[in-house]
């Protein structure tokens, strides 16, 4: 099947009894791209994958692959292949017969299907394990068998449901690089479901962040990480501090915001028109925050600008940087990722009063509010 593996989801909806698992989603995944559906468990990402695969029927809306609607078609006629969460390798069949399963269903003779399955296994360097049973393989080997079994169908779309979750950390890092390389080589569309942010941005051309059955943001990994559109994405991706305040004044396209607790900070408006008193959300990257120890207790400081004042809550050494979490009275915790050389040149300790400063150019305005309004700001 050499057709296009472009996927379009049009108003796709899935309801189970009363609960809405997937809520009127529109999404286009270009042919030959690596797309990650990312979100917490229960956000609907696996349901979307299963609807693309044909293991779940949409309540409303359409799934189109290569420009044609596939709703109602059995999985095999969609040109998709799925890799299941714990691989679902058939325990009663050898590795070879697992890989050859699709050919057997299509009526290919024994000699030919074994020949082709062996070739497939050779590509993932598992040919010497062809006669083993799945339970005799390691997790990483099982995953490669599952991959071979799916790819022997010659799919235009490969669907991967949490493909790395059953592996230990070391293998996980190795296999995600392998997946990425494989996708480039095959040139087909990969749709990969995960709940791990770093996994998603490491492999994907396109990351789709989901929450409660809806898409929060879809874009390149770098966009999602550095230019989140909502407070939800900013918080979920983890690289940002979210700031909330009321517009006090606007000059030269830059707004000055005042938070509930009195801090003032500037945010570029990017052409957005706002009125005084509007509540805005913006964010600043954790690694663009500078930390400074103060001698006086926090309460005795003047109202800070483009800065927050608080006490160090936790310090986590991360190798290349140090993650410092700061308790700020009246708002959510603030995080500064300090380059390790800088940190150890002038270290702080838990409980120390500190000021965290940033420059207005590093502030990014969040255009959709998401659920930010409900949480403290």
């Amino acid at each position, binding site marked *: 099947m050499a057709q296009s593996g472009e996927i379009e989801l049009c108003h796709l909806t899935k309801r189970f009894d009363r609960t809405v698992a997937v809520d009127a989603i529109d999404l286009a995944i270009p042919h030959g791209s690596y797309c990650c559906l990312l979100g917490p468990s229960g956000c609907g990402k696996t349901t979307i994958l299963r609807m693309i695969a044909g293991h779940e*029927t949409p309540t409303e809306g359409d799934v189109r692959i290569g420009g044609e609607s596939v709703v*109602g*078609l*059995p999985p095999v*006629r969609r040109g998709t292949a799925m890799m299941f969460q714990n691989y679902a390798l058939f325990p009663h069949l050898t590795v070879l017969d697992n890989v050859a399963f699709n050919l057997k269903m299509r009526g290919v003779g024994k000699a030919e299907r074994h020949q082709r399955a062996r070739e497939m296994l050779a590509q993932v360097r598992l040919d010497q394990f062809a006669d083993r049973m799945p339970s005799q393989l390691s997790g990483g080997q099982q995953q490669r068998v599952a991959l071979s079994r799916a790819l022997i169908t010659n799919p235009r779309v490969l669907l991967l449901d949490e493909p790395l979750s059953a592996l230990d950390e070391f293998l996980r890092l190795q296999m995600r690089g392998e997946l990425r390389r494989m996708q480039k080589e095959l040139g087909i569309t990969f749709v990969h479901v995960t709940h791990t942010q770093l996994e998603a941005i490491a492999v994907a051309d396109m990351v789709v962040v989901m929450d409660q059955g809806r898409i929060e943001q879809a874009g390149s990994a770098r966009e999602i990480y550095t230019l989140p559109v909502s407070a939800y994405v900013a918080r979920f991706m983890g690289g940002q501090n979210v700031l909330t305040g009321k517009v006090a004044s606007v000059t030269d396209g830059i707004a000055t915001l005042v938070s509930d607790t009195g801090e003032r900070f500037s945010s570029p408006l990017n052409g957005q028109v706002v009125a005084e008193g509007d509540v805005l959300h913006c964010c600043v990257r954790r690694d663009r925050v500078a930390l400074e120890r103060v001698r006086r207790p926090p309460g005795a400081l003047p109202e800070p600008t483009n800065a927050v004042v608080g006490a160090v809550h936790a310090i986590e050494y991360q190798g290349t940087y140090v993650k410092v979490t700061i308790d700020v009275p009246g708002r959510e915790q603030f995080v500064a990722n300090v380059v390790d050389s800088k940190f150890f040149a002038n270290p702080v300790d838990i409980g120390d009063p500190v000021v965290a400063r940033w420059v207005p150019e590093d502030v990014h305005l969040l255009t959709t509010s998401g659920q930010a309004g409900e949480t403290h700001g």
Partner: protein
Amino acid sequence: MPARRSNTSRLRLHHLLVAPFASLLLVFFGVPLALVVVVSFFDLDQFDIIPTFVLTNYVELFGSSLTYTLYANTIKYAVIVWAITLVIGFTVSYFLVFHVRPFLLQLALFLLCTVPFWTSNVIRMISWIPFLGRNGIFNQSLIALGIVDQPLEFLLFSDFAVVIAYVHLFSLFMIAPIFNSMARIDPAVIEAAVDAGAGRFRVIREIVVPLSKTGIAMGSIFVVALVMGDFFVVKIMSGGQSASVVLAMSNETAVLQYPPAAASAVVLLLVVTAMVVGILRIVDVRRELAG
């Protein structure tokens, strides 16, 4: 190839799959049961069934003091056997599930308990005769050990012998479902309870018993129903000194007294059903079985 198996055709498939099962049960269980009820209202004349509608069978059944004695006797057996098999079933399962490692040994010992279940009940019952008899192994051992001078008479052909045989035959029906329930308990739950400071018996009471209640209920249903429905153990092991409801019924059918036997069967079935429904009201077995 059909584009999609619609919900209705899938539903039809499920009905098709269950059809042979349901029809066989309907023909060989449903219809016969209905016939028993119908015949219980028929009259009897010199070994011939007369299809009329009379209540004589029931009137005679409830009018006879023998009926009440039989029920009292049968229910007595059921309660005693239920209590003993429950203790055995729970203890054996608890030992196997929580104290025996590795898993293969656990499975092997469980199979050791179940093997006799796959052999003949009659043979297993009569195997007690050389054991418990006046000159049986048990008495000879007791005399040899100097515990008694005279052989014990009450061992065979007595209530004692009946209960022993029941426990021997039916305890597996208690062990298997309880074992099955207990085996599904996550060991981490128990370790968590121990870590939380629960002693051995608190763990059993607060964790193991509640989580095995489906198995206990299933086992209880089996044992009660089996004892209530027995006639051969009572006949042989009591040596004719005791009787049960079904034994009386079987004596009637032996002389072709079908309508009175049917009336007795209907009453027995109502009693057993009431007991089973009572157990099912305490524990919803189906939800945990099929769900």
